[in-house]
């Protein structure tokens, strides 16, 4: 059973939208605009209506409608214009439109109607230039309920239990200390509600998370912080993090200020002292060493699946094969453009390849090796939307792992200053008590649930248009996806979605 959507408005007084609506002095408070607007932009006021939710305004395209308030206002007192602050939001990967779309989904559980591009960003390549090729002729109508978005994570055929999740994604690791306890808990609770998983990140987890242990993935990272027999035994999936896309080949550094007494206790370290996560695992210098790692987990927890998270070097396909033969159930490919934590800009941009290349490369290689059916490929690092997710699957992944999208659902605006001063000024990635209090747990949990429910609906509609009844049919379907630079509408039978 999937959870329900509940409307969860912005926690800030003025939500950010593409348009600005203002009511001038000429207003005589006749209330016509209030009655006309089906989107709830206005609220009644004593002297004139209040513009309570301009981010819900349909904008200029509304002029075609009967209910267009600007024209219907008898006093011509309503001004509609583009919000000048909108264009400075976000970046090329997370365009203002994509941010606002994600906020809309998190607030309403609906696909945005304001003319926002919720399918691609503005990066000029990769996912942003990949399009689905939909069949021209409609097949028999498939009811939504008959479309399955579930995937099985244990494809190895070994004696360990199967782990089936109803959506083809789980949530990636963000450690306690890098994000607030509210952020951490809300992600885990949302994962539990959606019956999927959330990784803990390095450094263990506070006791508040224990009730959700069936939906948690314990991460074993290079610093081995927070790794204990208990934390390995109580979960259904254990993840080895060899590298991460945000800083491939580089280690982690938790600043002394962030090592609060609570963080220190969990990490068995000294409060106030900076903690380094080295790179790489000092116990692994060969694929044989890697197998010992996997065996260690398998010995410690007889029911756990083992996931191996790696970055995307030139030989990522060989790395994936090595992981499989070492006994991993899941290989997570973390592309170089993703990540949430602080990292050198030079690493984020230049080191290792984008996930859009890595996934098909690995999928093809494992298929040729004859082992593709025995391992689950999870793509992460730069998946921003339902469309990115569906494209990653068509490129060869079984499912995806998300992180940044959750933060955007919590109203991250991607200012990239997670580490400045007291941490995130919007209270998402901080341990500062006052800033942490900017966000309530129930609010945050439901925002994430709303967004993912909307993603799932979009995925279902993509699958239906492709005539598929299960997301598992989409895996590695290079024929239903094309790149705008290399394929023209004239060359194909189907319809290239633009």
């Amino acid at each position: 059973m999937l959870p329900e959507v509940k409307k969860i408005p912005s926690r800030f007084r003025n939500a950010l939208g593409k348009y600005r609506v203002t009511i001038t002095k000429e207003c005589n408070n006749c209330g016509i605009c209030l009655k006309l607007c089906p989107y709830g932009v206005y609220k009644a006021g004593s002297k004139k209506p209040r513009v309570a939710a301009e981010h819900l305004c349909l904008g200029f395209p509304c002029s075609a409608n009967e209910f267009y308030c600007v024209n219907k206002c008898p006093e011509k007192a309503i001004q509609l214009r583009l919000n000048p602050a909108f264009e400075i939001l976000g970046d090329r990967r997370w365009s203002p439109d994509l941010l606002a779309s994600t906020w809309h989904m998190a607030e309403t559980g609906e696909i945005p109607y304001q003319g926002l591009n919720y399918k691609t960003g503005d990066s000029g390549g990769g996912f942003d230039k990949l399009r689905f090729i939909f069949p021209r002729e409609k097949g028999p109508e498939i009811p939504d309920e008959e479309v399955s978005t579930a995937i099985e994570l244990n494809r190895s055929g070994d004696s360990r239990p199967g782990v089936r999740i109803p959506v083809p994604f789980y949530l990636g690791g963000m450690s306690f200390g890098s994000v607030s306890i509210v952020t951490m808990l809300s992600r885990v609770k949302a994962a539990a509600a959606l019956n999927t998983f959330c990784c803990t990140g390095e450094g263990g987890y506070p006791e508040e998370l224990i009730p959700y242990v069936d939906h948690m993935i314990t991460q074993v990272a290079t610093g081995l912080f927070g790794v204990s027999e208990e934390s390995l035994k109580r979960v259904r999936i254990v993840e080895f993090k060899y590298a991460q896309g945000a800083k491939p080949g580089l280690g982690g550094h938790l600043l002394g200020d962030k090592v609060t007494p609570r963080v220190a206790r969990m990490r068995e370290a000294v409060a106030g002292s900076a903690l380094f996560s080295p790179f790489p695992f000092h116990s692994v210098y060969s694929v044989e060493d890697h197998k010992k790692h996997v065996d260690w987990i398998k010995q410690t927890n007889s029911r756990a699946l083992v996931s191996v998270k790696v970055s995307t070097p030139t030989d990522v396909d060989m790395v994936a094969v090595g992981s499989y033969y070492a006994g991993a159930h899941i290989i997570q490919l973390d592309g170089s453009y993703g990540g949430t934590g602080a990292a050198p800009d030079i690493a984020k941009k230049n080191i290792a390849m984008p996930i859009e290349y890595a996934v098909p490369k690995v999928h093809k290689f494992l298929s040729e090796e004859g082992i593709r059916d025995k391992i689950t490929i999870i793509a992460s690092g730069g998946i921003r939307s339902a469309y990115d997710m569906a494209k990653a699957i068509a490129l060869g992944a079984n499912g995806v792992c998300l992180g940044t999208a959750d933060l955007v659902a919590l109203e991250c605006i991607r200012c990239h200053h997670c580490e400045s001063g007291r941490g995130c000024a919007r209270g998402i990635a901080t341990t500062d008590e006052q800033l942490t209090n900017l966000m309530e747990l129930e609010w945050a949990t439901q925002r994430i649930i709303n967004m993912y429910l909307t993603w799932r609906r979009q995925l279902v509609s993509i699958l239906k248009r492709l005539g598929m009844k299960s997301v598992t049919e989409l895996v590695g379907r290079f024929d239903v996806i094309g790149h705008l630079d290399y394929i023209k509408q004239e060359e194909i039978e189907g319809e290239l979605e633009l």
Partner: protein
Amino acid sequence: MPAKYHIHTAQAANRFQLITRSGVIAWEEGCLKCPSCVKKACVYKVYEKRGIDSRQMLESLDSVCKDCFRCVQGCPKQLIQKGFNPSYKALGDHYWTPEIISGLWYQAEAGRIPVSGGGYGGAFSGPGFDAMWTDMSEIVRPTRDGIHGREYISTTTDIGRKLMALEFDETGALSVTPPPVVEIPLPLLLDMLPWSPPGMGIKLAILEGAKSLGTFAIIRQSDFTPAMKEYLSNIALYIDGQVSDIEPSVLSALRLIELPYSKEVIAAQNTLKITNSGLVTIIRMDLSPDSAEEVVRLTKEGAEAIHLVADEYGLEKSDRPLFIKERTRDIHLRLVEAGVRDQITLISGGGIAMAEHVAKQIICGSDLLSVDIPLLIAMECRVCRRCKEGIACPVELEGVDPVWGASRIRNLMAGWHNQLLEILGAMGIREVKRLRGEMGRAMFFEDLEKDIFATLGRRG
């Protein structure tokens, strides 16, 4: 083990107010005078710290603001907005972009490498250096210790010709004289500027910068003044006049000389060697479609080092120019094919704008690079090029203090050095010499697109 190369950095404040990407626009009219005004609640205390720079009549607000939008979203009357700063968009040009310029300013000021959260936010790829990615290694050394701790990643580079083997006579004594080699601790030379405001301050800042970094600044013979004599061990003198005009004491103290390319350049090199046998000569030539052939020929004739210079956009001299990295790959591979690659030192310059360009250009076959415009940007240059027209510099570089300028250059180069270590560390490479020509440890946009995206959408 030799002492670890370390560049001393220290905050070197901006003289002028930063040009930021966006600005705060706040109205007073209609203000409700809330007791708990959002301006007071600013996490970064932007409004408390604000001040007016009286020289420029500019506000400090925008250089402190970090775009969290809390005040924009909190003001009950929506009196605070943020907007694009048109002066930011106008910085530089298509190649020297506002993002590159402001990134260089940050490093020159802070002496730290740019670090940020939230993943990458830029374009998927782009022309030139943005069309390649560098490799990483999941499990090999060096560890992060190699970057910050016990182990050592060397960025030392040699300039000069190399023997492929030593020879000994029957008594066991060395029967060949190894040619002179100049060793520098980082693979960067500070080059002559393609344009710059007049004044000695800029040149002295570059010289002082070269000295404190342990590298060389290339100085025109015609610009050389007696005041520069104290920097002789950090000067590569570019001969734009007659060698006979150089004072003998100067000539004998120099370790590097750069000769402009000509038909007789090898003869000129040999003449110089007679007066100063410890000297290494570099032949400077424009990068062009003929470079590969010329470089192979010069190498066979005994050249020691060749400096191939592209224009300020990294383009070679041609009607249909190739970008520096493409042409360098061609030259490197031709030298390998001719079996002489290791005899010669290849220096590349022109369009080197960021630390990542250093690593990528070395991967494409250069031994070391020369850097020019970033040295000016380190001193707050806005790449407006007004100095080319003889118009006064908006950041008054004519009268720049050489000590301050040198500290800014040192900070920037320290940032580049550290970023080079990050790239090398991620690849598991312990010396920059081994990075040269390692094209197998890089991923090129054209190859990946062809292999992966170009085949999509086709049945069967």
